[in-house]
Structures are given as C-alpha cells and as structure tokens.
C-alpha cells in the first residue's frame, strides 16, 4: 500500500536521491509478517529498544564518570548523589544490563523452541550468537567500571582465565592487563572498549535485521508462508503489538529501577576495590552464573590438559556450540509443537541452564560440584548427542498445510473476510 506521505513532492525529491522513505515503507510498514506470531516474538524488538536505552544512558553516565582507579568509585557515587537524576540514569543502566540478558535469553530459547535457526535462517542465528558474545564482553567490562570489590576481583578472575592458554597464557594476560595486575591501565582500556562495543553490537544487529528481512520471521508453526493469506503487514499489526509488549516490559522494569534497584547486584560491589582483600566468595553477575558453573565443574586434569584449561575451553564452548546448532539439528521440522520428544528435551535444557546458574552462585563445594558436573555434561549432550540423534529417531507429528489453515479452518484458499492480508497490501 502506498502511504499518503509518499505523494509529497519533497518526500519524492529526497526519496529519488536517498530512498529512505521507500525503505521505511518496505521494511517497517508493508513488511509481510506471519499472521500467527505469538508474544514470544516480541523479545527481538524489545532487545533492540533496550540496546538503545543502554547506549543513551551510558553516554550520559560517561559524561560524569572518571576511569581512574583513584576516582572511579567516587565518581559513580557522585553520579548517585550530586548529578541531577544521576541515580535514575545509573539505576536504569545497571538494571538495563540485567533486563537485556533476560530478554535476549528468552529470545534465544524461543529460537531453539521453534527451530528459528533452520534453513534459510542459519546466518541470522549465527549473527545472533555473535551479538550474544559481544554483549557478554560489554557487560563484563561495564561491571568493572564502578571499581568496587566485585568489579576488581571479577576482572582478576576472568582475565586470569587466559593464563590457562598453553605457553603464551601469561603473556596474553599481561597484555590484557597492560601491566602485571589488574590496575589503572586495565580500567582505562575496559572503559574505552565498553564504550566501543555497543556500537559494534548495533552494527551486527543491523546485519541480523537484514538477514531476518530476507526471508521474514519464522512462526510458531515453523512452516513457510504459502501465500498472501498467511501474512499481514508489519504496521499496524506488529507495531502496536510491540508497543504493547514494550509498555508491559517497562512497567516491570520500572518496578525494579524504582523499588528494588539493587536486586540484581552484589552488595559487595558497594565496597571500593581493595587489591589486598579478597572477598569470601567471588561471584559474577547473575547472567554469567551458568558459564561460571561450567568453568568450575572441571576439577580434574586430563592427561597433560589442566583442569583450568578444560574448564575455560568448555565455558567458551558452551556458547560456541550454539554456532553449530543449525547443523546439529537435522530434523526437517522446525517447531517443537510438532516434535514430541524435542519439545520435552527443550524444557529439560531450560531447567538444566537454571540449575547451572544456581550452582554457579554457590561455593564450589560438596554436592554443588557433582550437580554442576552432571548439568555441564547434560548441557553439551543436549546439543552434541541428543539433537543429532533426535533428527533420526523422532517421528514428527503431521504439519498443517498452511499458516492460515488452523486459524481459518479451510485449506490454503483465500479467507472469507480478511481485509488485512497481504493481498490488500500489494
């Protein structure tokens, strides 16, 4: 449908030279979208909006923050006490980090449930995993900036992981630190990179969207659209649905920002960093706890490989294995709705990840070691053994013939009364 403002002569003059208006019309308004997307499909756009919130609040915080070991902690407290609404901006930023991970984790699990990584969306999925890796790096470095006890000791533990690399490990760690311990050069470069990475993420998000719009969204049935009756224009249907989802999210988010702003944080990080005083338990932010559990689950050397090296490899491997998912899952059926066994294993994986997070938050002693090892083993078994195996042994339930069929009752024929379909749009 041609928008009325496209007839404006100034719009046409600009669009002839820079097609921003026809681009917006094609990708944001007319963009054909499956009619049956559930609320689980809200989390993609939500993640994008939270990214923008993080960048905007982050830029303001950077105006008042001082990346120096002697001043970082006090400059953050100055933001909290003396900068106008500094407490609001900082609490939005810190809670925004947690919200970003909750949203992105739901987004990823949605992709796993509905097989959104399958052909032709493999690159879309891979770009998503790249975004996750960039987010993790950004969040880790951001947590170091307030220079509290957990900032310092978290940075020490995580950067020290690289010393597990054979032969050149120690050289790498010294290079990362810019010295012989986590100190001012480390804080300086982390601040620089923490400011840079979000814009790298924006770049990958753009690629993620280009890739998404090439074939359009997957949908809860996991089948391709057969015709115009299966799709509706993005605007106003999904713009209003995304707006509603955003508003619901912001309500919950505001609840944390205003009434429990330190719920996701560690009390210990309100103590200034002290290189001479190790906290009793060093724990990362909650969104890293599952990886932390995997890292610490390896308590034994294997042949010439140290437990530390294997732990580090598995920790990074737990993300890297996601790159292979489109090729580990050979089942032709996308949606777990029609995969009776995969559907159950999906929920076992979700529980497994929660268990890993729980283990990661507890000291590596006694029963937690065993539980962590079993959960780690299961995590990798899910992807490397069960996924390929299911492709062979599982009998999927019969798929509907079209997206419109279960809704409209008929076959793939044109719906009786559906003025909103893409037929009208085109």
């Amino acid at each position, binding site marked *: 449908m041609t928008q009325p403002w496209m007839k404006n002569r100034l719009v046409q003059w600009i669009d002839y030279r820079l097609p921003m208006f026809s681009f917006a019309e094609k990708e944001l308004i007319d963009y054909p979208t499956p009619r049956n997307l559930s609320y689980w499909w809200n989390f993609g756009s939500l993640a994008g909006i939270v990214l923008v919130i993080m960048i905007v609040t982050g830029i303001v915080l950077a105006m008042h923050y001082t990346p120096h070991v002697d001043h970082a902690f006090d400059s953050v407290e100055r933001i909290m*006490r003396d900068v106008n609404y500094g407490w609001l901006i900082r609490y939005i930023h810190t809670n925004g980090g*947690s919200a970003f991970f909750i949203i992105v984790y739901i987004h990823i699990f949605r992709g796993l449930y509905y097989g959104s990584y399958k052909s032709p969306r493999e690159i879309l999925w891979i770009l998503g995993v790249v975004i996750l890796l960039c987010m993790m790096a950004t969040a880790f470095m951001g947590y170091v900036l307030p220079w509290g006890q957990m900032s310092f000791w978290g940075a020490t533990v995580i950067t020290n992981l690289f010393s597990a690399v054979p032969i050149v490990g120690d050289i790498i760690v010294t290079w990362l630190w810019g010295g012989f311990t986590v100190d001012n050069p480390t804080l300086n470069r982390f601040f620089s990179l923490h400011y840079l990475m979000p814009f790298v993420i924006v770049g990958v998000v753009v690629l993620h969207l280009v890739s998404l719009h090439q074939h359009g969204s997957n949908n809860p049935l996991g089948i391709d659209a057969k015709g115009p009756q299966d799709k509706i224009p993005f605007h106003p249907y999904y713009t209003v649905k995304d707006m509603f989802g955003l508003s619901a999210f912001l309500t919950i988010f*505001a*609840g944390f920002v205003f009434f429990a702003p330190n719920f996701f944080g560690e009390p210990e990080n*309100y103590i200034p960093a002290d290189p001479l005083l190790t906290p009793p338990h060093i*724990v990362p932010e909650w969104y890293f706890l599952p990886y932390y559990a995997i890292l610490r689950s390896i308590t034994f050397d294997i042949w010439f490989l140290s437990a530390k090296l294997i732990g580090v490899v598995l920790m990074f491997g737990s993300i890297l294995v996601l790159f292979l998912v489109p090729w580990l899952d050979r089942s032709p059926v996308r949606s777990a709705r029609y995969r009776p066994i995969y559907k159950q294993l999906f929920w076992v994986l979700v529980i497994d990840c929660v268990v890993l*997070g729980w283990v990661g*938050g507890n000291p590596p002693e006694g029963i937690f070691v065993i539980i962590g090892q079993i959960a780690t083993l299961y995590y990798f078994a899910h992807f490397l053994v069960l996924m390929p195996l299911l492709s062979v042994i599982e009998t999927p339930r019969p798929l509907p013939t079209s997206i419109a069929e279960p809704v409209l009752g008929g076959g793939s024929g044109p719906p009786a009364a*559906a003025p909103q379909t893409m037929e009208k749009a085109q």
Partner: protein
Amino acid sequence: MRRTLGAILAALALAGASPAMAADAVAPPSVKWTFDGLFGSFDRAALRRGFQVYTEVCAVCHSLRLVHYRNLTAIGFSEDQVKALAAEVEVTDGPDAEGEMFDRPARPSDRFVSPFANDNAARAANNGALPPDLSLVTKSRIGGPDYIHGLMVGYREAPAEMEMSEGMDYNAYFPGHQIAMPAPLSDELVEYADGTEATVGQMAKDVTQFLVWAAEPELEERKRMGVKVVLFLVLLTGMLYAVKRAIWSDVPH
C-alpha cells in the same frame, strides 16, 4: 508456552537472588522500617537522632566520607544550623599564599571530616582493625539495614566453648561472630535533644535509619517518582492493549 514465561522469569530471578552467603551468618531480626515499601519515607526526627548518635559515637572511629555537611538540610536542619554543625569540626585546607597548609572550620560544602588522616592511622588506633567507612554500609552488607541494626544490638557473652582472639568481642550477627568493634552503644549513652529515651534499641534504630539515608539520599524521591511512573505505565499498557485488540479485531488468529 505462554504460561511458562512467568515460571522462567521467576526461576531466573531466583538464580540471580542467590548471592553467596557469608559463612556462619545468622539472619538478623527483621525490623519494620518506615522507609520500607512502595510508599516508604524517612522519619525526620529519627534521622536527626541518628545523626546525633553517629556524631557522638560512631564518628570517633568511622568516617562518612561520601556525605557533605550541606546534605544535612535534607534531614531537617536549617542552612544556619548546618553552617554551625560544620564549623564545629576543623578541616585541613591549603596551601595558602605562603604555601602553608592550615586548619579552618569546616563549611557546608565540605565532606564529613574523617576521624583519621588515613587507613594506617585508623588501624594503628584500633588494634590493627580498620573501621570501615559508613557512607554505603547499609547497601554493601548482605541483610542491609536489618544487619546493621542487628550488629548494634547483637553483642553477647561469648559461648563458653568458643575460643575468642585477643581484643575481640562476640556478636550474634557478625559473620564468624568475632568482631573487633567493642559494643558501641549502652543505655543513656547520648542525651537526645528531643527528649526521646536513649535505649540501645532506640539508638540502634535511629543510627541505622541515618545510615540508610546517608547511603541512599535519593530513596524518598525515587519511591515517590516510582509510584507515578508505574501508575502511568500500567495505564499506558492497558490502553495499548485495548488499541492492539481493536487493530487486530479483523485478523482471525
């Protein structure tokens, strides 16, 4: 799948809310604070009493370096009172035109003057233990205000079977129970200007509330704004849901 969203969020929240607990920590008694809850606010009289306890008792050893004297107008002191309060303390300034450092009475724009020149001086005066700065103490300890209050009222005779180190006291709520700080409060230790009876329990509550204010001076403004923001968002969400329903009414789904 929709039903499970709540379950996942709750599980994630739980996973996040399981901070590593310090060894041997005993949960302090739960106090009903006026600043708790959605509409919580500080009790101004309690804040001023707490300030008195901090100044006359805690400040002998503990700094409060992130708070400025000017901030005291927020707990009900007039600007002239704040000037007078600040002027009671000497602060080192300089160098002057001759290059000399000099002492002068503190001004409202100064931070609370610390009792010791540096950490080493503080340790030397305290049997090797460093009295922590109290600016953020209610935020930086697991248990928050309840824990700080518990610490004030938690001094007991050490159990017979417990081996106490030299110069340490037994505290029911301190992790490990051996604390270098001797019991700071005793009944009638301060004489409250407003005539309130200065029991240990009263002083502990007052000074804890003062320290919560010192750590989170934005607390009242934050909660007041939060109520408005959440109410607005609930309304907006409801309206957007109605709009969404109306727009989607011609899409069978």
